[in-house]
């Protein structure tokens, strides 16, 4: 069961990847879906046993590396934290596999797509069940690879290739820090095994490295790694571009699972992070800033998938600042609920795009709600959950996050709370802007497209409906386990709050207006969107015209891409050319080639002296004789 949950997807990937050509496209698709269903069943069973019955387990698979006291094993570590992730990943991935059968039906090479998708799931599961940091890194890079392949799935498009490369390389920047963090972990603890690290943390709190506290430095380095994968401020630029991939990919990888790996990492390292207060402050600050920053951009984008992508970025910021104030459980809770409603929103958007003949610009949609009612309904549910409207999944987790930020009673906690409230307002605003522009108003698409609008097939609607159920119920059902009264028994030590950290208790004792605030601002956001886009549809354009600088600043995503082009990409290219053309060709090669031509010139000169005329030689001899004789006479006397 434990092994099956992880390895069934690999089996599925192998079948459809290598044998897809022989068994045919349909068989390949359905066999990978079948493997995923098996994995999901195993995942659910594992969740029941490990998390609900509190029976964690570790399954050893073999040695990986063992060099001079540096020991690594392949092993599956099933504690509650891992089991939650495994159950969530396998379930969502199964639904998305199923959805893809419908979505990719017009594609040329579905077996390749399913192979990548299953491979991704396998890698993600390796990541979450890792027993040590290197295995986690294996999964970490593996999901990066799968994401690279899937973003660039339509590889005849230049934009898709560019986005795929960008995703991989920006992630690599994060990995650079991650790797250094792992090296420092080994230097500090002589091991990168989770159990050994966690056991040894209290003895190493005083260690320093380069004059800095080792634990703090580890925390910062690992967090910077997490920033890459989870698209936090500074390393977020790849995520919106990643929407070049097919929509199921966006739903699975760039919303529900892979991008949450960074949050998972911080929670996994909670026993260590607890002793790194400054690193946690950084986590809170970056998370809170990202939550607000991404939400501001989401308000003006016009591509339906990019809006949702920025909203993902923003929600990841929430998770990070929850972890940053020490409420890892709450971060995991939001991660869990977010997976449902964000996958739902993306797949809903996919259904819209499918219906609109691959149109993604919401300015060319509108007036289609009655033609695709099921999609319309599930998009509403997803948006309600995202905005945190009471009794939908997002309400429980987002409220809990804001309560925790408030209860932190620190400066950065306050900052996070304010950013969180503002972002909640903007979230509701852009969600309803999206809903209204997409489904209501006058149809803005051409007649041909409008004529083709159709509801998606059952194979796509079924996953949507299941996810919608999750988006409604996941918060209510699991609140008590994740953050409520059974919290301690549920996590069973897989997440550690240090003795000085009472946030899980304090967050339930905040003033009464705090839990109410997010709901109020969300309703205000919805009202504003309704007013601007339904009541006075001319107003947004006028607003944009009134503050053109701000509008352009937001539309161009705070000019991050341009900035990075200027600072990194351009100079790197110029430096490359200089190093090559001048450094290698002129200077380094110039010297030996110069030496060669010098030698050739000298030998030509020497050849010229040898004229073959005896008179010349005799003359030279006499000159020489005179020279040496005079030297002898002058010098030796």
């Amino acid at each position, binding site marked *: 069961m434990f092994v099956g949950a992880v390895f069934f997807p690999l089996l599925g990937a192998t079948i459809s990847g290598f044998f897809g050509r022989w068994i045919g496209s349909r068989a390949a698709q359905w066999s990978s879906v079948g493997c995923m269903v098996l994995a999901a069943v195993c995942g659910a069973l594992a969740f029941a046993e490990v998390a609900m019955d509190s029976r964690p387990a570790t399954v050893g698979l073999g040695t990986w590396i063992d060099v*001079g006291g540096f020991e690594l094993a392949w092993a599956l570590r099933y504690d509650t934290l891992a089991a939650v992730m495994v159950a969530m990943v396998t379930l969502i991935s199964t639904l998305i596999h199923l959805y893809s059968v419908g979505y990719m039906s017009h594609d040329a090479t579905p077996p390749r797509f399913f192979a990548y998708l299953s491979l991704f799931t396998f890698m993600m599961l390796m990541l979450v069940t890792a027993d040590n940091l290197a295995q986690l890194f294996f999964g970490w890079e593996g999901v990066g690879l799968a994401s690279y392949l899937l973003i660039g799935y339509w590889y005849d498009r230049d934009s898709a290739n560019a986005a795929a490369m960008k995703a991989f390389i920006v992630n690599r920047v994060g990995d650079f820090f991650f*790797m250094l963090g792992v090296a420092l972990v080994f230097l500090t603890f002589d091991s990168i095994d989770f159990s050994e690290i966690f056991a040894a943390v209290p003895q190493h709190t005083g260690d320093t490295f380069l004059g800095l506290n080792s634990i703090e430095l580890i925390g910062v380095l690992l967090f910077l790694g997490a920033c890459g994968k989870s698209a936090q401020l500074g390393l977020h630029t790849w995520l919106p571009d990643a929407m070049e991939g097919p929509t199921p990919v966006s739903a699975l990888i760039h919303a529900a699972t892979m991008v949450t790996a960074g949050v998972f990492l911080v929670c996994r390292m909670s026993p260590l992070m607890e002793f790194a207060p400054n690193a946690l402050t950084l986590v809170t600050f970056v998370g809170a800033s990202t939550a607000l920053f991404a939400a501001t951009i989401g308000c003006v984008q016009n591509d339906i998938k990019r809006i949702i992508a920025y909203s993902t970025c923003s929600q990841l910021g929430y998770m990070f600042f929850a972890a940053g104030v020490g409420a890892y459980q709450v971060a995991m809770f939001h991660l869990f609920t977010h997976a449902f409603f964000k996958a739902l929103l993306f797949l809903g958007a996919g259904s819209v795009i499918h219906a609109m003949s691959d149109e993604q610009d919401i300015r060319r949609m509108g007036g289609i709600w009655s033609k695709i009612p099921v999609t319309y309904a599930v998009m509403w549910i997803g948006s309600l959950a995202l905005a945190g409207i009471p009794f939908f999944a997002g309400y429980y987790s987002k409220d809990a996050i804001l309560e925790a930020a408030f209860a932190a009673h620190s400066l950065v906690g306050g900052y996070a709370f304010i950013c969180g409230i503002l972002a909640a307002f903007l979230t509701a605003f852009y969600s309803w802007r999206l809903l209204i522009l997409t489904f209501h108003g006058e149809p803005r698409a051409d007649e041909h497209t409008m004529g083709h609008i159709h509801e998606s097939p059952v194979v796509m609607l079924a996953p949507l409906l299941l996810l919608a159920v999750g988006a409604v119920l996941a918060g209510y059902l699991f609140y008590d386990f994740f953050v409520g009264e059974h919290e301690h028994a549920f996590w069973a030590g897989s997440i550690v709050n240090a003795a000085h950290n009472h946030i899980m208790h304090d967050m339930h004792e905040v003033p009464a207006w705090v839990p109410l605030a997010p709901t109020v601002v969300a309703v205000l956001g919805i009202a504003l969107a309704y007013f601007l886009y339904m009541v006075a549809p001319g107003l947004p354009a006028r607003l944009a015209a009134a503050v053109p600088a701000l509008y352009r600043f937001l539309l161009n995503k705070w000019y991050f891409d341009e900035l990075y082009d200027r600072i990194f990409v351009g100079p790197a290219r110029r430096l490359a050319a200089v190093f090559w053309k001048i450094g290698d060709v002129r200077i380094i090669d110039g010297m030996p080639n110069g030496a060669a031509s010098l030698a050739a010139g000298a030998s030509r000169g020497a050849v010229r002296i040898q004229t073959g005329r005896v008179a010349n030689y005799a003359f030279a001899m006499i000159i020489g004789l005179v020279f040496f004789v005079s030297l002898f006479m002058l010098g030796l006397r």
Partner: protein
Amino acid sequence: MNAAGFPLLSLLTFLPLVGAAIIMFVRGDDAVVARNARWTALWTSLVTFVLSLILWARFDRGTAEFQFVERVSWLPEFGVGYHMGVDGVSVLFVLLSTALTPICILASWEAITTRVREYMVAFLVLETMMVGMFAALDMLVFYVFFEGVLIPMFLIIGVWGGARRVYAAYKFFLYTLLGSVLMLLAILYLWREAGTTDIPTLHRHAVPVAAQAWIFFAFLASFAVKVPMWPVHTWLPDAHVEAPTAGSVILAGVLLKMGAYGFIRFSLPILPEASAQFAPLIFVLSVVAVAYTSLVALAQEDMKKLIAYSSVAHMGIVTIGIFTFNQQGLSGALFTMLAHGVVSGALFLCVGVLYDRVHSREIARYGGVAGIMPSYGLVFLFFTMASVGLPGLANFVGEFLVIVGAWKVNPWVAAGAALSMILGACYMLLLYRRVAFGRVTREDLRGLLDLSPREYAVFLPLVLATLWMGVYPQPVLAVFEASVAALVQRHEAALNAARLAGL
């Protein structure tokens, strides 16, 4: 005295020469000669490879001593003898050489059409030289093989190479020879000092600290060119570009390892103080190599040149690992050498597949190949990812260990080594994107055939080796564990002794 019961290493070394001799005597018209030469070369190299597996099977992993030792007195009055043997450091390189040779011969099956007999002879002689070099335990014997490698390689580049082959061959030859002359001086000095050229004896001989510095630099001159280290690397791209595919494979797979092997075999154990003293210099050169050549790789328009520059960057990681003097770093360096031998060899073969079909190495000439040749696209992607250091594939294990080892010594050096993770991804993905992805813009590419059975046979062992080394590297690491541990221990003991003497 010998675990195999017969002089296995000499057999491995000289069997290819026998094959070469047989090929020399083949008579008949050109087609018959070519066919017989190919088959003879393939069988000879395969038999050599199978015999070398005995090394793998019978090698005692528990000891750092030299094994399969053979010793014949040659010039006893000068302390020079024919002495062969392998330890954990060298045994896998013997295997790497014997494994890559049949793959190279298979890869040249159809690509080489002129002077096939001479080509195959050159390759078999090259194998003799490589195996002999890794197995030699006498400095003079080592030197003979070390230099001997140059001759067949010089011919392979100069005769069967591309348009500027003569320039490249001379550059390759002169560069490497210049360094070697200085090494010969150092060997002569050591022989005068210790009265012998026997390597294990020299390992136990304490060279005066004052003399160590210049001997170190004499060795460095030779090994740095072979590695190649920045800034004496420019012969490599030219040699690679002009060499035939199989020549590039051997060049990247085995010849580049000779320099690093020299550091581990001579510089570290014989000159411990100088090695420790000049380690910062090596670190600086290596980190510069990683950053500089990675950037230069980014600007390349020629597929082979790009991979050649990437080799320089990878070897930078190797030299960092060697001069960390700790077990993780050294094991990582050795592992990276092996992994790089397999992976970059395979990448050159990937380029060769396209070159055989289109006769161009220019990146811009391609595009959309993955759609036309899906199996090839997959294989190329596999090795691209291996080269980038994806965990689970061969290169990662070595690089990871080097970074861990380097971090112990100096975190900035570790950061420099880790930089290759980012830059490596940049240039390799750019290469893959421009060659394999994108729209097909050249109509003549549409007719390309996917991998042939012969090409599958070439790639399959390399794919399996890469996966195996990535997922379960322990059997490989275990081979050099004892030798590396002994090396580290001896190094520390020597340094401590020097420190005590200084007090």
